[in-house]
């Protein structure tokens, strides 16, 4: 309701200041078919837009200006803006190909001239995604990209890969360039890599409504001008700048609701407890006060309550308060049916009702316009986004100002300025005893986390999670895991991000052969975090406060000199020379206070033990670029480019300066041939282009300071329980770094070759763009493992080799085109495969992320990031088909040692092996836009085939007897497990898969993981939107130019083989190690109402 009131307020306040201004239109071909992706430029300006799927465009232009409308395969059309605000433009098919794309360093080039793959996503496609994160909004809308949201947390970040990976352990996410300068898209984790809270990626600070378009530069040839910084691909974002003409106001409001998508399948029948013993497998109930962790107790159907303390099965005296009331359940403790008070035991629904329907709302206003010499675009937005977990919040305010001044016809200045404030309240997740899902899923059905209250009341009523004496109320008697209601009140993290970034651009056009451009950008981020753990939290029982601040500052500067002209009537040449300087600096200060004196004041002042650490990370890069482009007869286009980079991260302190030590040159060449120019003109094949490119590009060391090693402080512990941090009792103690520095480091190298075709048929109604690439990566920098008996754990080496290849295809279809009905469809297909060929001499396996018993690794011969864990013993183990890395062929061997506790279970292979491949086989996005008169319908189907995920939830919950599987098998009759005995005969030892099975080394928390690897692929209805153009003029409203209301759904349906949460998840966040699920926050579905008005 609040949101709607706000919307109306804005609406009415705006009508006073607003004036009519927007220029909108539709672009059709000569047969009346809408043309998506046509370019609309204002002549003699930098303003330009691309039409959406329905051929619609909206551009800022003033009366008298000329709109140039172009589309590949059609003759340009020029329209002079007059009194009307709406134009219907028809393009005639022709040979002139004027499609323009934004490429490296912001240079706009004719699409036909480009010898590599670039794909553009328009603002309209971003807007109707229903996501507030520009990365999420790109899912399915371009070929060659893979985007994974790390969790369903409000304010949780996403990871993007373009053409898979290029670096083994370094950054693999593309460079984000906004308005020509590098922009911070960092993700700074809090807590360990497997536990803590969700983290944002900083691109989330961008208001999607400010985006004009996004251009994705995929291969090395496309990104070569960015040097090492662009090794992983580049996402070039252009924001709206305003255009000459009357002031235009655009207002967007959306209100939506998010809810949980799915939960793990838990059993509802068996209560807290265990079997009496191995020899007497009678389940019995155990009181929470015993600390019992598992749900291998009796069926709730056989239990009832009792409040009689003298009952023979009554829990110990410490489970009762001084008045004799049972502490853990208001109904009493549980006894065998027939011996209690007759009130049947409840099966409490702890988890299904825990999550809330979360509201989100966004208000965004922009004002733009300009005169002959200056334009402006101002926008502001306010987003509030609740999480589905109570008390989880994300809020963002953005302010953006872009303006340009053209003092004369040779000179132009453009500036952008953005201020963003983001606030987060985050919830602990993943592998930590304060992780929300951990305690929620493990809670037995016989324990009520809410202590009799409803979910909403329990959140606000401390008696659900805390006793009057300050002890925590949870199902393990105060031990184990935090009660979820405790977590959402007593273990919260608050984060505040203040960010300012902007750019200054000057262009000076002397003549055709000499133009100078200067582009300066700065990006400053202050990120202040405070994590609270109240006294009694399971993660930190003495209480803890972490106060952390990060300040990140980066500057990027380019000087470009460009020029070019026709040399003969067939030969055109242009050139580019550029210099680039970039610097990055991040300071961090973290203060930790533990041993709080009293509850209710989580503040450093309340801590009796305080430690602090500071860090400074900095690096500098310089680059020089040269590029020549030659065009012959509008048919052949050849581009040659080179960049020389200098990177401080390769420097060795104290050594004598030799520029060659840390400089490197990367060449690139690309060729585009327009076959259609050489063929007779045809309506069937309206356009045909083939392209090829080759490039070498380097990758920098993943971090600063790898060329030396020194001493550092490292916390003291053995991995079980919290570690101690220095200073310890007043002394500090340094240790030699565990990673050995290497003064010989050089940059990584990727060599890539790409071929592509771009074909358009039937007057461009069908367009197919296919790209194939192959990559060789060498000198990959990695922290090669050493046996620690050397005194070091790792050494930095340039030793890795990988190969990659992939196919990308985009198919555009104009399925139906009539005056009243149109249906445009786009398929984006991606497959990429990166194989680790070599790590280092003698090294076949390198840990990326996860747990010591299972995680994501680099394994020689396997695809990047293979999932590694324990396996069952195979009859072929150690034999000829056993390479020590993968599961050998052969039958599962059964333990047939009758003295063993695991007699009749699968035997365990002592070697950890590759048990899964987290990389999808392919990704297919199908994006549709259907328009019928005033109605428009869009939907996006997202199919990700394959990609294994380690189901750590199933692993852990089988140990605790909480998964449905354990409920099913524990009551089955004894039967032999499939496998062979040590003599090779089929197994004939009957066993029941009950508590003792699931708590053995082949159950949960055991060393064998192969049975918990699941296919994490999906078929998903990612986006649906239904829009309606409000017939404003029919309604007699004239002060509003256009208005749309729409209903947008996101992630409304999916289908997966994966058991548990939505497989779009990653325990380790946006890092390189993917494929591990361990009590991550579940993903959400959402529906929102959206109103867009243009005045």
């Amino acid at each position, binding site marked *: 309701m609040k949101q709607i009131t706000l919307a109306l307020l804005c609406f009415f306040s705006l009508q006073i200041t607003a004036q009519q201004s927007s220029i909108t239109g539709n672009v059709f071909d000569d047969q009346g078919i809408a043309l998506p992706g046509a370019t609309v430029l204002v002549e003699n300006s930098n303003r330009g837009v691309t039409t959406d799927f329905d051929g619609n465009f909206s551009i800022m232009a003033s009366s008298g200006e000329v709109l140039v409308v172009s589309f590949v395969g059609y003759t340009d059309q020029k329209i002079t803006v007059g009194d009307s605000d709406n134009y219907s433009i028809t393009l005639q098919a022709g040979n002139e190909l004027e499609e323009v794309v934004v490429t490296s360093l912001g240079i706009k080039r004719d699409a036909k001239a480009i010898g590599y793959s670039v794909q553009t996503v328009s603002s309209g496609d971003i807007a109707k995604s229903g996501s507030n994160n520009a990365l999420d909004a790109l899912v399915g809308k371009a070929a060659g990209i893979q985007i994974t949201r790390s969790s369903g947390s409000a304010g949780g970040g996403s990871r993007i890969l373009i053409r898979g990976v290029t670096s083994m352990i370094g950054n693999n996410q593309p460079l984000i360039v906004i308005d020509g300068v590098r922009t911070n898209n960092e993700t700074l984790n809090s807590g360990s890599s497997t536990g803590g809270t969700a983290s944002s990626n900083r691109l989330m600070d961008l208001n999607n409504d400010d985006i004009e378009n996004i251009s994705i530069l995929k291969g090395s040839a496309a990104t070569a001008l960015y040097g090492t910084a662009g090794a992983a691909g580049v996402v070039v974002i252009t924001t709206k700048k305003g255009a000459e003409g009357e002031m235009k106001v655009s207002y967007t409001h959306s209100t939506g609701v998010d809810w949980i998508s799915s939960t793990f399948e838990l059993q509802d029948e068996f209560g807290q407890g265990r079997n009496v013993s191995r020899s007497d497998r009678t389940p019995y109930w155990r009181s929470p006060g015993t600390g019992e962790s598992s749900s291998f107790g009796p069926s709730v159907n056989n239990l009832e309550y009792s409040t009689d303390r003298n009952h023979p099965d009554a829990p110990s005296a410490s489970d009762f308060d001084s008045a004799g009331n049972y502490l853990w359940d208001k109904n009493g403790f549980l006894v065998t049916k027939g011996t209690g008070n007759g009130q049947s035991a409840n099966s409490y629904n702890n988890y299904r009702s825990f999550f809330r329907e979360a509201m989100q709302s966004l208000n965004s206003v922009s004002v733009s316009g300009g005169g002959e010499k200056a334009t402006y675009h101002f926008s502001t937005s306010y987003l509030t986004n609740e999480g589905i977990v109570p008390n989880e919040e994300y809020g963002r305010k953005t302010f953006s100002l872009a303006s340009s001044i053209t003092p004369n016809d040779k000179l132009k200045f453009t500036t952008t300025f953005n201020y963003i404030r983001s606030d987060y309240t985050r919830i602990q997740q993943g592998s930590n005893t304060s992780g929300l899902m951990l305690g929620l899923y493990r809670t037995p059905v016989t324990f009520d986390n809410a202590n009799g209250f409803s979910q909403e009341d329990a959140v606000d009523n401390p008696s659900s999670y805390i006793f009057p004496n300050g002890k925590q109320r949870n199902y393990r008697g105060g031990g184990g895991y935090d009660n979820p209601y405790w977590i959402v009140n007593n273990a919260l993290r608050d984060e505040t991000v203040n960010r300012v970034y902007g750019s200054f651009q000057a262009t000076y056009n002397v003549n055709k052969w000499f133009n100078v451009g200067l582009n300066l950008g700065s990006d400053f981020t202050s990120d202040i975090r405070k994590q609270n753990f109240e006294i009694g939290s399971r993660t930190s029982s003495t209480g803890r406060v972490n106060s952390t601040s990060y300040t990140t500052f980066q500057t990027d500067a380019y000087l470009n000199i460009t020029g070019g002209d026709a040399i003969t009537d067939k030969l055109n040449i242009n050139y580019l020379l550029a210099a680039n300087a970039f*610097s990055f600096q991040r300071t961090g200060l973290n203060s930790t206070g533990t041993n709080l004196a009293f509850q209710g004041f989580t503040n450093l002042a309340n801590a009796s033990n305080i430690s602090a650490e500071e860090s400074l990370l900095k690096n500098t890069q310089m680059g020089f670029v040269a590029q020549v482009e030659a065009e012959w007869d509008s048919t052949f286009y050849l581009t040659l480019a080179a960049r020389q980079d200098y990177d*401080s991260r390769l420097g060795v302190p104290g050594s004598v300066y030799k520029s060659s030590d840390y400089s490197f040159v990367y060449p690139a060449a690309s060729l585009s041939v327009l076959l259609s120019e050489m063929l007779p003109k045809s309506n069937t094949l309206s356009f045909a282009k083939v392209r090829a490119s080759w490039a070498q590009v380097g990758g920098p060391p993943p971090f600063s300071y790898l060329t030396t090693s020194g001493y550092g402080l490292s916390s003291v512990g053995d991995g079980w329980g919290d570690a101690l941090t220095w200073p310890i009792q007043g002394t500090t103690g340094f240790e030699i770094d565990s990673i050995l520095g290497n003064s010989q480091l050089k940059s990584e190298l990727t060599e890539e070759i790409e071929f592509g075709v771009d074909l358009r048929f039937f007057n461009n109604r069908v367009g197919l763009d296919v790209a194939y690439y192959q990559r060789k990566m060498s000198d990959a920098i990695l922290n090669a493992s050493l046996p620690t008996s050397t005194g070091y754990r790792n050494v930095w080496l340039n030793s890795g080799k990988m190969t990659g290849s992939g196919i990308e295809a985009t198919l555009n279809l104009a399925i139906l085109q009539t005056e009243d009905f149109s249906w445009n469809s786009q398929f984006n297909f991606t497959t990429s495969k990166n194989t680790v060929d070599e790590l280092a001499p003698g090294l076949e396996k390198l840990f990326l992320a996860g747990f010591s018993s299972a995680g994501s690794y680099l394994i020689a011969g396997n695809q990047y990031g293979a999932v590694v864990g324990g396996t069952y013993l195979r009859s072929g183990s150690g034999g000829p088909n056993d390479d020590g890395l993968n599961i050998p062929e052969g039958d599962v061997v059964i333990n047939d040692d009758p003295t063993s506790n695991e007699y009749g279970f699968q035997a365990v292979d002592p070697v950890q092996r590759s048990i899964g491949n987290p990389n999808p086989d392919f990704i297919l996005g199908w994006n549709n836009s259907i328009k019928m008169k005033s109605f428009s319908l869009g939907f996006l189907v997202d199919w990700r085939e394959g990609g294994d995920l380690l189901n750590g939830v199933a692993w852990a919950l089988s140990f605790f007897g909480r998964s449905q599987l354990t409920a099913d098998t524990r009551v089955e009759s004894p039967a032999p497990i499939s496998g062979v005995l040590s003599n090779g005969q089929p197994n004939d030892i009957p066993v029941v898969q009950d508590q003792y099975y699931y708590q053995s*080394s082949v159950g949960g928390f055991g060393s064998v993981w192969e049975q918990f690897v699941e296919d994490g692929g999906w078929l998903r209805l990612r986006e649906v939107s239904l829009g309606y153009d409000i017939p404003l003029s029919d309604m007699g409203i004239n002060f509003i130019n256009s208005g749309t209301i729409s209903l947008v759904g996101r992630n409304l349906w999916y289908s997966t083989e994966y058991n548990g949460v939505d497989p779009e998840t990653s325990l380790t966040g946006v890092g390189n190690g993917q494929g591990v699920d361990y009590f991550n926050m579940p993903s959400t579905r959402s529906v929102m109402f959206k109103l867009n008005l243009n005045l």
Partner: protein
Amino acid sequence: MKKIEYFIKTVLCILIFSACESFIADDINLDPNNPGSVTLNAILPSIQIRIMDVYGGQTSRVNSMFAQQTEGVARQWSSFNDYSGLTPVRFNTVWDIHYEKVLIEVNKMIEDASTDGYSHYAAAGQVLKAAALMNMTDWWGDIPYSTAALGIDDINPTYDSQSSIYVSIFSLLDSASALFNGPDGGLSLGGDDVIFKGDVSKWIKSINALKARGHIHNGRYADALSAAKTSFTSRDDNMSYKFAVTQQAGWWRFNDGRTGDIEFHPFLRNLMTNLNDTDRLSVWDQTFITNHPYLKADYDQALISYREIQFIIAECLKRTNGSESEMETAYLNGIQASFADSGLTDAQYNTYVGQTAVNPGGSSLDLETHILTQKYIGLFVQPEVFNDLRRNDFPVLTPTSGTSIPVRWNYSGDELLFNENAPAEGSTTLFKPKNSWDN
């Protein structure tokens, strides 16, 4: 127009210059967060606390579980308890700590102290190194040593025999003894010595204590006896580190984070119950939570203790047919120290040892029934109980699964994977081979 050109040129010069400057500076890529060198007082505390922490942490948990003083009952620890879950990777952390957090540091400290002539620091380093090496070889048998901790200079350290490791241990202890008996060279140990606070006489006693332990492992009872007699004379001499309420000992941190994974073992409970050892039981046999009355936050973790020495004296006298009265005194001292260590009174101790079953008098003290039993009880959750178990094959325990009790630790999984000179996969397990001193 000229103005614009000047403007652009100026900006450019500033940019390029500032970028260039950072490239030709001496401190290019110099790590501001980690110093290139540190002084002795900044490295000694980490070596000491590391040794104490790993000894009183994972070492204590695994060894007391093998010796059936504690029992793994939940999550990973239930599979550790029946040995199946204790795969090589489970030993990565303890192995890493010994080599990467202790050995290379202590080598560097000894080297730096020797270079500067600070002989007491060098001596303290040698004692700590000897203590660490003895632990390592006792848990793992043959270990990398002579070519270990050399970094990139030898990336596949070779494995030295256990007997040669013991030779090195005694030579380090002898050298330390000589240095401690001389001048400190101008820098004395102080507050940074978190074990003995710079008390050289205690360092010298600890050298003899470690020698006594080393000798008895190797069955040299007379040598062990004479070393023990010149070592600790009271609990105050313990080579120990007292953790703090705010910076807690290993067991407390485990019980805090992993509540319910490990509990008191029924075997020890029965043994003590049969001896009416109710007072110590009431302190020890509690649920392993942060309120445990013995495994406290500020636990005083001994690397080697007065009570162990007293039991060594008693055992050696028994085995060498020495003085029965001395034997009885040492035996009772050990028990008394254990009571005191558990916060119990002398009255409670007196009641206990007043039983004939516990103390039938010096002439009737039996090696197993009395001395080894009381040492087994008295060293509750001290890693040494696993050494005694293997050395004496006593107490007689029933394996929790299968037919044998572990006789060693697994090598680190990473070590097996990355060191070409590591024993072949499968050639060493928890059950083979035995230590050289384990008959």
